[in-house]
């Protein structure tokens, strides 16, 4: 089945990004396809290449980059939300791309299920 996922909160402050990541990994393990992960609202902060969590903590951004690389995930950051919050190409982590809100709508149309994670 084709899933799409939206994340509306940034890393660490809320559990949303953690839950979405574990959901995506479980879906992939079950052989489902993740059509797209769309980062909206503060969710765009998950794409910052400059994050550096304490060594004994999980690295949320790096974990998304790795999952994207392994499974060719399409991680899309909303351009308008990103500009508001200071995420641009120059601090965009690997595996993410910046694009328009239409990508969220398109994901909703093309996927069988769209699941939202937020606050």
């Amino acid at each position: 089945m084709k899933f799409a996922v939206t994340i509306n909160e940034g890393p660490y402050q809320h559990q949303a990004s953690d839950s979405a990541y574990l959901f995506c990994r479980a879906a992939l393990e079950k052989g489902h396809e993740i059509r797209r992960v769309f980062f909206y609202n503060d969710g765009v902060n998950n794409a910052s290449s400059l994050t550096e969590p304490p060594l004994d903590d999980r690295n949320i951004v790096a974990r998304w980059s790795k999952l994207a690389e392994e499974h060719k995930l399409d991680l899309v950051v909303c351009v308008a939300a990103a500009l508001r919050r200071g995420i641009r190409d120059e601090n965009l982590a690997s595996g993410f791309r910046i694009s328009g809100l239409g990508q969220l709508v398109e994901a909703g149309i093309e996927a069988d299920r769209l699941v939202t994670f937020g606050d």
Partner: protein
Amino acid sequence: MLHIVNKSPAERNALESCLRVVQEGGAILLIEDAVYAATRGNAAENHLRDALSRFKVYALTPDLEARGMGDRVMAGVTTVDYGGFVDLVAEHKNCQSWL
């Protein structure tokens, strides 16, 4: 359809709003801080027990365990892991997250 709730019933109105809207045949999945709603002795217990007679209610085991609540789940609530979460989304025609 599947209703996903992630907020503690003592802090926010999300679960309460959800319970008023769920239709027959609907299912509720409690994740993150919402898993407290599925534990024995919490103030929303009767609320949820009432829901259990009408809908299937699930709670996410990793979130229960993180909060030290794995051994306090109310009878009638089904616990699932992330794989079960994925299955629930797949099995229902659509889903709504009560953020």
